[in-house]
């Protein structure tokens, strides 16, 4: 087990290295730079600025300097937000993004699995059809359509529940108050709820047909015990391998959600930084996201091999 973990972990390192390299050279290959402005700077000043950020050195040397600093955990200064280092900016934004992402993941898994199991147990009845229709909506309607529509309903018009007017703020983070979190988390998790419900339903249906479930029923276990103790455990296996793509999906969605709801997470930094050509900040965010994805893929692999020993033996 430890050998397998070590192998997978070492396999992940080149991936990170490639991501960093590709991102670095892609950005530098493009025309324009962080200090281009409408007003041309005097040549001396421009030279000084470039020298201060090592931009006057050959590209390959800059790459070497960047890697060396990175190994020491230094992501460099932000080119545009002059008083901040990239690490500081990420330190501010990342907790917000992670909180949003974790809540969305939790909601997506719990609701998705329950809906999927329910649909599978009522296969080809109205419950199944309605869950799958809603799931289809969740998959096809993009985040940037659901976000404004839900804002319009819950934020602008307001909803009356048992005679109590129920409105939610249309944006802002407000230090993470729960009223501000609800809409972004729901919007972010909708597509994942849909995908997870479909996955769970599919694997559940297949497993309910298998022989050992028939055995469990035949020996007189209650319906609940059969579903919860025998079927669900095996049916969740494909979900574990969906963990990686789910995280990638949530990260991609957070770019949009943070933009729409004005949440100060790193997704919003990324778009701004890319538009401003803030090289170091873009790199920092890409490294941050890539590490998250690689790490979660690694964790998913580990869980999978724990649950299904055949994987690490092959």
């Amino acid at each position, binding site marked *: 087990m430890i050998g397998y973990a070590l192998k997978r972990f070492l396999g992940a390192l080149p*991936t990170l290295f*490639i991501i960093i390299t590709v991102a670095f050279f892609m950005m530098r290959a*493009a025309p324009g730079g962080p200090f281009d402005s409408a007003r041309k700077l005097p040549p001396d000043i421009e030279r000084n600025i470039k020298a201060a950020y090592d931009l006057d050195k050959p590209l390959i040397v800059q790459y070497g300097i960047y890697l060396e600093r990175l190994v020491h955990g230094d992501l460099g200064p932000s080119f545009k937000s002059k008083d901040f280092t990239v690490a500081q900016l990420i330190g501010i934004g990342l907790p917000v993004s992670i909180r949003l992402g974790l809540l969305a993941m939790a909601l997506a898994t719990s609701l998705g699995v329950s809906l999927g199991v329910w649909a599978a147990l009522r296969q080809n009845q109205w419950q199944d059809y309605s869950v799958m229709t809603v799931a289809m909506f969740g998959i096809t309607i993009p985040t940037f*359509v659901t976000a404004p529509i839900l804002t319009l309903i819950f934020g602008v018009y307001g909803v009356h529940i048992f005679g109590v007017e129920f409105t939610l703020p249309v944006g802002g983070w407000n230090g993470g108050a729960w009223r501000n979190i609800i809409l972004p988390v729901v919007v972010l998790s909708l597509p994942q709820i849909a995908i997870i419900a479909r996955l769970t339903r599919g694997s559940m249906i297949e497993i309910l047909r298998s022989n050992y479930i028939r055995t469990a029923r035949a020996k007189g276990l209650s319906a609940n015990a059969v579903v919860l103790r025998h079927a669900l455990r095996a049916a969740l296996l494909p979900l574990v391998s969906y963990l990686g793509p789910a995280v990638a999906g949530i990260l*991609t969605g957070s770019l949009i959600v943070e*933009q729409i709801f004005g949440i100060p997470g790193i997704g919003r930094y990324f*778009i701004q930084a890319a538009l401003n050509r803030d090289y170091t900040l873009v790199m920092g965010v890409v490294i941050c*996201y890539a590490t998250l994805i690689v790490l979660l893929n690694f964790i998913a692999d580990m869980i999978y091999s724990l649950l299904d020993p055949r994987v690490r033996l092959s």
Partner: protein
Amino acid sequence: MNPVGARKAQTLERAFAGRSLWADARARLFRNKAAVAGMMVLGIVTFLALFAPLISRYAYDAIDYSIVTCAPDWWPAEAACNAGGSHWFGTDTVGRDLFVRVLYGARVSLAVGFVATLVSLVIGVLYGATAGYLGGRVDALMMRAVDILYSLPFIFFVIILMVMFDRNFYLLFVAIGAVVWLTMARIVRGQTLSAKQKEYIEAARAAGVSPFGIITRHIIPNVVGPVVVYVTLTVPDVILIESFLSFLGLGIQEPLTSWGVLISDGANIMESAPWMLIFPALFMAVTLFCFNFIGDGLRDALDPKDY
């Protein structure tokens, strides 16, 4: 002859007539109501998109400041002004006809969808078939590369590409196509690996057909089923990616438009002019639905083991 006997004879006759796999699949596909409805609606949307300039008498970039942000005449709710004439979907913030803009958006979105999918199809099929056919160390190396690319946060690279290279329209096709070919390559490789074991490949090799000939003439036609299914599911994915980029302001630029741009504009002003959000969102959602229905139908039709 009694009815049961007649039916039996008919069945036998049909069995002996020998329908090809494709005829079988087609029959199953056309029995699937959702898939057929999807194809019809998609046909209508494509027709409207193709003939947009002939259908509407307004140009997609014709600005009319006398009817800025006006609701269509039939709009049920109270609106500041009504556009009148044949502005069926109302007008946008500079008085352009929304109907024709939604159709032009359909043109761009569908074009991006099909072209980028085609790019990914060509790369993915050739790559996957080569890796699967050659096998061994080459296969391991090629698929390892795919694995690494898979774990890259690709949307970020597309965003960097679009920002850095000034939102080039053609680059958009390439960038998106380069993102989605990976799954295609995996599917084709898997199919190729199993097709390779078949006797007819053995026969072809014995007859002296070159590896390239075997790949293009024998392997690719036989792995086409899953690929077709995946293609129909890729097109909506690509349309989503494009509108995602356009929504962030990184895709299609004014005055040209796409569904993502229109939805983004509409979302900004949805409180006072909900039609600007509703119509493009509706067109996009319906189109994506159609592709998904067709894809599901094709999967059921081409994979008879569920029947």
